[in-house]
């Protein structure tokens, strides 16, 4: 299920923009089959949110549950914390995954990933028409945050690990995404086996296979880059996020690609402006599943 919500930012005062933005992110999860779990302290009615004048001030948070066949035996949760950013209307979004929650906004247990600060912490103003784009089926979710503004545009991927046939498995999960201020300072990837401490976080980009460069087309086909969750060794690649080169894909372009023998639709998030260490390769573009 894909979700694409345009934020019509006409008034850069704090409150309306923040509430609309948070609402869009929340709806993105709900539209992609995730379940919002009531938490003490999580605001239901976003219209009641007040103005935040300080940078990096938490506004509210959500805990979402995966909603797939594996959830009954291996529960998996996502916590999203919403912050004010560094400019009127800009928003910072912290994302974390784990196997359990305490009902009051914290993920608990051994398998809790490091939070990704997925959003602008500096004065990167949103533009009118900014989008929140998501895709998911309850076993994975991809989220593109404000792609119209490359300075604060960010991408996130939440997923279970996959077996060699491309089917999600209960053994663990993977959180991958970008973060930063006026540029994408980090592009991180972290795996946790369920019940174990997370593996070392890959902080200079995930473990990946670069798309072909010379030529880009092999036999008329693009060979795109694959991202491999890493737990001391590369695990099966994700079918939900790919890498391409900017010369081969246009910003926000939708294209078909086959992973694990199944053709799916992907969108170029057009996120760029990587900091040097976070840039996987020259012209790297992050594509996320959208179907």
């Amino acid at each position, binding site marked *: 299920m894909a979700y694409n919500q345009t934020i019509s930012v006409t008034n850069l005062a704090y409150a309306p923009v923040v509430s609309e933005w948070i609402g869009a992110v929340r709806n993105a999860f709900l539209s992609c089959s995730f379940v919002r779990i009531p938490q003490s302290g999580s605001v239901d009615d976003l219209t009641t949110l007040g103005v935040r004048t300080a940078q990096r001030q938490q506004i509210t948070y959500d805990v979402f549950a995966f909603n797939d066949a594996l959830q009954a035996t291996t529960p998996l949760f996502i916590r999203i914390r919403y912050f004010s950013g560094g400019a009127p209307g800009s928003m910072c979004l912290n994302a974390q995954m784990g196997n359990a929650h305490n009902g009051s906004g914290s993920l608990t247990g051994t398998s809790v990933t490091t939070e990704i600060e997925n959003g602008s912490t500096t004065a990167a103003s949103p533009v009118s028409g900014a989008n929140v784009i998501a895709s998911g089926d309850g076993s994975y979710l991809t989220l593109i945050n404000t792609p119209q503004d490359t300075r604060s545009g960010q991408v996130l991927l939440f997923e279970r690990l996959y077996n060699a046939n491309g089917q999600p498995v209960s053994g663990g999960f993977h959180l991958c995404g970008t973060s930063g201020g006026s540029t994408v300072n980090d592009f991180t990837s972290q795996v946790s*086996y369920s019940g*174990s401490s997370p*593996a*070392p*976080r*890959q*902080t*200079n*980009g995930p*473990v*990946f*296979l*670069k798309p*072909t*460069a*010379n*030529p880009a087309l*092999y*036999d008329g*086909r693009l*060979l795109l880059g*694959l991202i*491999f969750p*890493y*737990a*001391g*060794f*590369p695990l099966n690649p994700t079918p939900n996020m790919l890498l391409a080169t900017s010369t081969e894909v246009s910003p926000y372009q939708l294209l078909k690609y086959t992973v694990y023998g199944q053709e799916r639709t992907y969108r170029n998030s057009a996120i760029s402006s990587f900091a*040097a*260490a*976070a*840039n*996987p*390769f*020259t012209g*790297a573009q992050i594509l996320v599943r959208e179907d």
Partner: protein
Amino acid sequence: MTTFATSSLALNATAASITASYRDFVQKMTVGFESIGWVNTNAVGTINTSSFAISTVSGSSVGYQVWRFNDDLHNTNVAPVFVKVEYCNLGSTTVLGSGYYISVGSVHDGFGNVGFNSSSVGPTPRLAAGTTALQSGTLYPINLCAISGGSAVGVTAYSNASAGVFLVERSLDFNGNYTADYVSIAVFDAYNNRSRQTYFRYNRQDFSPRVETAISALTSTTTVSAYANNVAINMAIPIVPDGYGYPSRMLGFVLSNDFALGATHQITMFATQSTFFVPNITSALTSILNRNTSALSACRVAIRYE
């Protein structure tokens, strides 16, 4: 049954003569190829390793050898592999960069031309490997390894600052067994600080070999990347028009904090424990891979070595 052969030689670069040092390099490489089980076809025009003249033109071939695999897939004529090695000084008349070109085909005319049979497209483009300037009075190790006289990897004339690297390896199946689909080639040329990879496909005429401007591999960027007693050697991955191939059994990359340099390590791949060697090369290798170099300052090469 898989058998291995390894060869370790040391090139003694001398101040007295660029030519003498370069001949020594060619002679050591020749002994190395023989010792890992490759067969010299003694092609007409083969380089005379003791008397060839060094070129004054950087990168210009000074002579060639055509070697052939001596494994079952070659000897049963299922998938012959002829490797043409053209030696070249990548430096100048005053600087020795111990270089060579590698190209691969399925047939050889006996006169130094490797090519392809009527149902294939080839041979591969020739790719350069080699080192930066060698210093006089220094020993430069050459480490070569081949599986069953066939697929081979080498780190040639290396120091902590430079190395030539080559890989000539057959395609693999899901279980890590060599197949007759294609041969992949990867090289690193330290003199020009560039790496390349290409392939030769059997029985395919639809798409001629292309050259990637890096060696494709997965690479962790976070050291120490060990987790649950596991840490990976990230193997080179062939790219052919059908997609990505199964990873190499012979050439990989590691982060320096993950593996001791200058030592051998046991690693399990394709469900079999294998020995790899991480040469003590501490610089000049970041451009070997296919990703942003600023994330790879601690990347090292690892080769099969048993």
